[in-house]
């Protein structure tokens, strides 16, 4: 130990323990902050990992097979050849969206019809109620989604009408491989034997139909090799190969982003805890200065006196990390409850070695890193302080301070990069966080400066005294504003974001916009459907013709050639997708022209001026004036890009990637979409029943229902986000309690002295109450304001919408948090007025 005495590391441990056990009350609060923060991060991280693992381990059961070849059109001879070369499909499926009617009660429902044959599923199982219903289905009956059965009060033996056929219901379908509950909430699955699909008469031009061919493979068959071999050939024929592995990866990715987001929320909770540690340590070290001076008098070196407290912090970090990891195990149990059926698989909760290691290292690293700066003060304590109060003139080394600050930022960046795996996002996260910290710090300091400068000297004694407390030496103003501000910022931002998403969807449900969309209307049905709607006393808002087509040629290059060109940047979606194209002479509300000029009508069919959406242009690598040829059901049409539109796809209305001018496609084979607005639920149900009865092939989207489902899904996701955000607030409360507890000795002494001088208990309580109310309000108000700023940026940059201010954070969150701070502060200070000044001062001296 260089120029040191004979005491080794074990002495440091011993001293850290001795001092720690006498100060455990204060240290416990620090441990509590770390525990909560670590629990937040580890629970989300561990659960995300487990979900991914479970999806991977149940991938075959999720798909029902080892792999599937699918296409959105009947397969051609080449694809059939591939299927045959693979030994022939073990099962087939045709699925599409359609309206189902229940003759027993006359009600209708938008469903996903799945006609399956063969031994599907080969993995996983079809779960039904009663369980014997599967046998009935195999014999030719239908299985209807269990929730739908309950909603429509259906029983085994009732009938379901799909297009032209009516089948008895064998039972309620609880789960079936290939159907997700999220999508199932909009279009619940109905399972029917494959052979009935044709007789439904629903497989018509314009219908969105999926053809699937399921395969069971040998265990030795390598899916990656198969994919590599077959995928390019299938791609060229507008078909796809999905293996159970690729399906698991895709599904995993869906939840990954959400998991990453939650991880960041958890990480913020941990950071908040660390801010608490840093502030608590500052006060803690301040209280230990005399002891440190005495230790130095007795011969302890600078390093030793520093390390005693460093070891304490490290131990707290380890204990907090371990406790947090343990707590995360219980928190994880809550996620399946909160997320409910949004989860695709049952997740077996557990704690991996990696999670324990993560919790432990996070607890250790974060606590020591954040304690470094306040601990540096121990290095500069003069032993002379043991003799008398010394005016500390030595300040921390600037280099060391900068190094600690940079170390913290670097650690946060590295950890967020590890969580997100994206440099730009990690930098944005750290930048955003720094901005919030800096703004809150600046505001707190500005507030203190203004308060000092324009101090209300004319105010009464109590108000003046409580305001002075905000800038007394070792005040907690900054740390309280920081912790309250960040917690409020998080909660409010999450609220604004959720509100914004719902508002964005709900706006279409107002005024004279459509709330019902009728799809798959054949040309010859248009008049009759119009009449039915108008006879119901409703008006048709829009009639949209749709012509299906595929891209044939891009910028003079055949799609075939582009497919083979490995250097091509053109998206596969452009090359393979069957586009549903409309024609009209005007832009609609959800569109904005961003390039070129709009031509709504033409008379000649040479070089037709079309309008494409910006994402189409981006993916097809085309710009204004570029030629694009389409294959319109056998006929090639040459067009050129006349304009590029920005389309708001999030609007619940029919939107199009490609729009033709009028005067060209009027005679092409087409089908239609109509929109109308029903007045109420019963009117909507009545019209749906009539339409399904008269036009069984038409699909009806009830936007009101979709909105309520969307609200339900967002609500569930919101629950989890709110849960994590409240966790941050909870950590904030722990930090707050730590800060209040740490600074209590000053208030106690001041309160007791004031009482000795004649102040009444109630006056002291009022002082404390005003101080905490001001701190609570300042922190929470800044948090909400920053959330408005953050949400406006999110609206502008991420959601591409305008921010609509919600008053809830101002009228509920702001007062609630202010009250919480006030109550905690006052509650914690009651002891000052309950006991006699002498006993308080005596106790304080101890």
């Amino acid at each position, binding site marked *: 130990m*260089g*120029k*040191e*005495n*004979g*005491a*080794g590391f074990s*002495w440091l441990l*011993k*001293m850290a323990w*001795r*001092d720690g*056990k*006498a*100060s455990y009350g204060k240290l416990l609060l620090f441990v509590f902050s770390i525990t909560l923060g670590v629990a937040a991060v580890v629970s989300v991280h561990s659960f995300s990992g487990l979900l991914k693992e479970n999806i991977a381990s149940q991938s075959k059961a999720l798909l029902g097979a080892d792999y599937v070849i699918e296409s959105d059109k009947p397969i051609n001879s080449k694809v059939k050849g591939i299927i045959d070369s693979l030994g022939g499909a073990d099962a087939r499926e045709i699925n599409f969206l359609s309206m189902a009617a229940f003759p027993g009660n006359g009600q209708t429902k938008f469903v996903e019809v799945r006609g399956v044959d063969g031994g599907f599923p080969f993995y996983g199982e079809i779960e039904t109620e009663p369980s014997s219903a599967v046998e009935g289905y195999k014999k030719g009956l239908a299985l209807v989604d269990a929730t739908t059965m309950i909603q429509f009060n259906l029983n085994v033996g009732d009938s379901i009408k799909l297009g032209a056929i009516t089948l008895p219901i064998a039972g309620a379908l609880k789960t079936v491989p290939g159907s997700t509950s999220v999508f199932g909430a909009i279009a619940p699955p109905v399972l029917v034997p494959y052979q009935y699909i044709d007789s439904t008469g629903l497989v018509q031009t314009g219908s969105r139909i999926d053809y699937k061919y399921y395969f069971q493979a040998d265990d030795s068959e390598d899916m990656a090799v198969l994919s590599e071999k077959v995928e390019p050939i299938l791609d060229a024929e507008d078909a796809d190969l999905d293996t159970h592995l690729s399906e698991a990866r895709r599904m995993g990715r869906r939840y990954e982003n959400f998991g990453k987001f939650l991880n960041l929320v958890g990480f913020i909770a941990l950071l908040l805890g660390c801010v608490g540690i840093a502030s608590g340590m500052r006060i803690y070290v301040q209280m230990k200065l*005399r*002891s440190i001076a*005495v*230790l*130095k*008098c*007795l*011969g*302890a*070196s*600078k*390093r*030793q006196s520093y390390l005693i407290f460093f070891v304490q912090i490290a131990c707290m970090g380890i204990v907090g990390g371990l406790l947090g990891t343990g707590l995360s195990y219980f928190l994880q149990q809550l996620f399946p409850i909160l997320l409910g059926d949004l989860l695709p698989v049952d997740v077996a909760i557990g704690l991996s070695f990696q999670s324990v290691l993560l919790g432990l290292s996070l607890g250790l690293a974060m606590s020591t890193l954040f304690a470094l700066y306040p601990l540096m003060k121990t290095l500069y304590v*003069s*032993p*002379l302080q*043991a*003799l*008398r109060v010394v005016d500390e003139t030595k300040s921390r080394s600037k280099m060391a301070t900068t190094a600690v600050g940079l170390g913290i930022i670097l650690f946060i960046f590295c950890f967020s990069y590890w969580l997100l795996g994206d440099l730009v996002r990690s930098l944005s996260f750290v930048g955003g966080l720094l901005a919030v910290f800096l703004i809150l710090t600046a505001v707190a300091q500005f507030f203190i400066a203004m308060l000092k400068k324009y101090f209300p000297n004319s105010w009464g004694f109590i108000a003046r005294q409580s305001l002075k407390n905000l800038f007394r030496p070792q005040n907690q103003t900054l740390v309280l504003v920081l912790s309250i501000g960040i917690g409020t910022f998080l909660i409010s931002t999450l609220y604004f974001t959720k509100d914004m998403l719902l508002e964005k969807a709900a706006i279409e449900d107002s005024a004279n916009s459509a709330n019902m969309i009728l799809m798959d209307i054949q040309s010859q049905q248009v008049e009759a459907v119009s009449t039915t709607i108008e006879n119901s006393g409703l008006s048709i808002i829009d009639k949209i013709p749709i012509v299906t087509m595929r891209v044939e040629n891009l910028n003079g290059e055949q799609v075939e050639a582009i497919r083979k060109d490995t250097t091509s940047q053109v998206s596969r979606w452009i090359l393979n997708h069957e586009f549903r194209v409309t024609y009209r002479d005007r832009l609609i509300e959800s569109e904005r022209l961003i390039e070129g000029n709009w031509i709504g009508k033409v008379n000649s069919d040479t070089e037709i001026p079309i309008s494409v959406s910006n994402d189409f242009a981006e993916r097809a690598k085309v710009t204004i004036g570029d030629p694009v040829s389409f294959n319109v059901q056998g006929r090639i049409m040459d067009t050129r890009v006349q304009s590029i539109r920005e389309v708001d796809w999030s609007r619940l209305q029919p939107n199009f990637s490609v729009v033709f001018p009028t005067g060209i496609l009027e005679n092409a084979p087409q089908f239609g979409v109509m929109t109308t607005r029903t007045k109420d639920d019963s009117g909507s149900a009545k019209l749906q029943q009539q339409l399904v009865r008269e036009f069984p092939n038409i699909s009806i989207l009830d936007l009101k229902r979709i909105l309520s489902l969307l609200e339900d899904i967002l609500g569930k996701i919101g629950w989890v986000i709110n849960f994590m955000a409240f966790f941050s607030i909870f950590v904030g409360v722990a930090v707050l309690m730590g800060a209040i507890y740490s600074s209590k000795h000053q208030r106690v002494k001041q309160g007791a002295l004031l009482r000795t001088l004649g102040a009444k208990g109630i006056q002291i309580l009022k002082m404390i109450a005003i101080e905490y109310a001001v701190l609570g309000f300042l922190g929470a108000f800044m948090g909400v304001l920053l959330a408005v700023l953050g949400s406006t940026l999110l609206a502008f940059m991420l959601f591409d919408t305008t921010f609509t201010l919600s008053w809830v954070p101002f009228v509920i969150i702001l007062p609630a948090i202010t009250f919480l701070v006030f109550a905690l502060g006052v509650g914690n200070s009651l002891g000052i007025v309950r006991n006699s000044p002498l006993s308080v001062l005596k106790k304080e001296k*101890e």
Partner: protein
Amino acid sequence: MSKILKVQQLSKTYRSGDHDLKVLNNVSFEVDKGESFAIVGPSGSGKTTLLGLCAGLDTTNEGEIWLCGQNLFDLDEDGRAQLRNQNVGFVFQDFQLLPTLTALENVIVPLELRGIKNASAQGMELLAKVGLQNRVGHYPSQLSGGEQQRVALARAFANKPSILFADEPTGNLDDDTGTKIEELLFEINNEQGTALVIVTHDLELAQKTDKSIRLRSGKIEETVG
């Protein structure tokens, strides 16, 4: 007799606002091994500053201090700490026990800092010597002022120091307790042959020492003995 403490032309200046304040001015004296020495003077005369400098708790660039044969100002802070640990004991006016350690733990800190193995046994012995064998597990807050000062005495003598610095050792105690502490201080001082440097207002206490100096406004006004 060899010198345990040698102070030569020592001055100390503090910066106070925009002017310098000389709190010690050309102070010189010597203390022999085993000798008792008192520094007396009114408040603000520079007694505590002098004690702090002599014990290596503070530094100055005017004058020299030789403690146990070492020039204090040649050592850095950790070097001075090591010197204190091996040669110096302290008794403070307000006891300065570590509040989070028990009586025994307070006493053995200097021993542990030296890496001594059976520190606890020695600590028990020392506490018994000051009559606190039954209070070993008590925290400072559970002890009376006199008891705390006795613990401080036991701690001061724990590492068998060559010199002990005492800053108003009886200042915070009532007369009876103060007298007992004084007796104990001199008793152990005699037993162990430790030089004793006491800063005090108490002239009676100063008269009990072998030598003394009286400070006024940072200068030696009188030397006795």
